[in-house]
């Protein structure tokens, strides 16, 4: 059975795909559908209004519409998730390819680096990095990206170790192909399926970690809307207890985003990598 057919048979995969497309579309089209300037958005006359026909998700302590904040916040969180996974994937892939193909001393050093990075609880490593580089969205992207690197190193290295012994690679080597050519033209394409699955699942984790850093006050700085920062504001000001809508909607949309990528990742794994 081909992968597409297998994917279409997976209920979780289909739900995940629909949710992911919806989230991506809503986030991408935000500036067209509802232009928004966070710097000027506040209306103290409308402070902490519960959900109503005009403000479906209610308003926050500055009188801002929570629906709009969640919408743009999701865009921010998603951007952080995608960029950090991209960073982790690229760096991890390159180091994994090098370690697996060249082996020897360089593999030992990369292996040691991987072990160290995996020795930290992920959120703690991210906190350490952001504390040093200063709270900002860029720092969060780098921190969450670094946390992802060892996962991709291990995954890529293990695949390269088995691929480099395969006959087609040995034959290419015997024909005089350069290591760069062998790695990028022959080995890399065979490693892509499990990496795509892992990357999709990682976007969920990365979004969750980025929102966690935002909650700790290490992420987006005001007035940029971000889901974790919104929860942090509601918690610190005590609105999470007196006006629960300031908490419910941002958290719900973090969960929805993470769930969408987890479902899609599960579906992709079943179709692209059925042995796992």
């Amino acid at each position: 059975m081909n992968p597409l057919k297998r994917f279409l048979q997976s209920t979780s995969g289909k739900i995940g795909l629909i949710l992911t497309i919806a989230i991506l579309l809503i986030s991408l089209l935000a500036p067209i559908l509802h232009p928004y300037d966070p710097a000027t958005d506040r209306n103290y006359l409308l402070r902490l209004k519960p959900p109503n026909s005009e403000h479906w998700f209610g308003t926050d302590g500055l009188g801002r519409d929570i629906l709009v904040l969640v919408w743009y916040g999701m865009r921010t969180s998603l951007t952080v998730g995608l960029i950090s996974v991209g960073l982790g994937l690229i760096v991890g892939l390159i180091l994994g390819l090098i370690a697996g193909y060249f082996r020897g001393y360089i593999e030992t050093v990369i292996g040691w680096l991987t072990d160290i990075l995996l020795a930290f609880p992920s959120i703690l490593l991210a906190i350490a990095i952001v504390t040093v580089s200063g709270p900002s969205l860029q720092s969060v992207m780098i921190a969450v990206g670094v946390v992802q690197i060892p996962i991709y190193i291990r995954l890529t290295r293990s695949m390269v170790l088995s691929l480099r012994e395969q006959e087609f690679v040995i034959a290419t080597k015997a024909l005089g192909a350069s290591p760069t050519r062998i790695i990028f033209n022959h080995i890399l394409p065979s490693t892509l399926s499990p990496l795509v699955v892992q990357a999709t699942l990682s976007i969920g984790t990365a979004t969750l970690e980025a929102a966690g850093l935002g909650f700790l006050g290490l992420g987006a700085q005001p007035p940029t809307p971000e889901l974790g920062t919104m929860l942090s504001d509601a918690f610190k000001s005590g609105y999470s207890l007196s006006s629960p809508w300031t908490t419910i909607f941002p958290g719900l949309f973090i969960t929805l985003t993470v769930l969408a990528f987890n479902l899609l990742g599960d579906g992709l794994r079943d179709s692209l990598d059925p042995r796992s």
Partner: protein
Amino acid sequence: MWKYIAKRLLSLLPVLLGITLLVFVLLHLIPGDPAVVLSGERATPEQVEALRQQLGLNRPLPLQYLAFLEKLIRFDFGTSIISGIPIADEIKNRWPATFELSVAAMLIAITLGIPAGIFAAVRKNSWLDNLLMSGSLIGVSLPVYWLGLLLIYLFAVNLQLLPPSGRISVETGFNFKPITNFYVLDSLFRFDIANLKDVLVHLILPALTLGTIPLAIIARITRSAMLEVLLQDYIRTAKAKGVPRYLVIFQHALKNALLPISTTIGLQFGNLLGGAILTETIFSWPGIGSWIYEGILARDYPVVQGGVVFVSVTFVLINLLVDISYALFDPRIQYK
């Protein structure tokens, strides 16, 4: 076995060195003069210079790292910029709170997660299986701090059934003299039932919050481990011999599925230490996690550094224990 443990311990040394090196390098990457940053905003130039001398910041970096290592071995993490309290003392005081919370969270995760996984496996593809596995997928997608805030709103503010924060009520805590700082144990040692009840009631919401992700993961692992075992020939033989269904499940299948489950439990216990930062912050739980959070807010770098090193080393040691127990449970596993 001893040879395996010794080798495993030796292999840990480079990782521990790497952790300390990384944290040391990170601290020196903070923009600006570390002495100025570490002295705080209100320090005079004399105080900055005194700190530079005291910390040896005028010496070459490799020597500074060696001095940092030497202090760590003596459990000397420096002192907090804000409170002036030695970091090692804070860790000693706060560690029991974090450990107690993590154990409670793990107990919840195990007692609910394993039965959920067993039921899902036994009734594979039924509505119960779908419900439990959908629940576990949502569980791993939830931000724990959000769940914590919702639980506080529901159970503490609306229903007023459980306390929203802290380890013990103010009135109970006033007369309470901890011995070990593990409040559950201390209440048991003193045979103080009222105190024990108060401590347990304070544990419920934070433990439930912290335990949600491990619960979901344990349920998923239990299901897949049980499904694999339930397809084995010896299970079919047991069924054919007329062994009662519950005995087949609990005595024959579960026993053999326990290995991957126990490994997951160990690894999740290590992960709880990281998750504790967010949970402790929400519930004002006076553990290591909330202390690191306060350190971040106050830019108290020695606190963040000490906390990160301590939690990471503990995390590595827990993972080591998991590895060793893995080899103990399954003699086929040997160190190579």
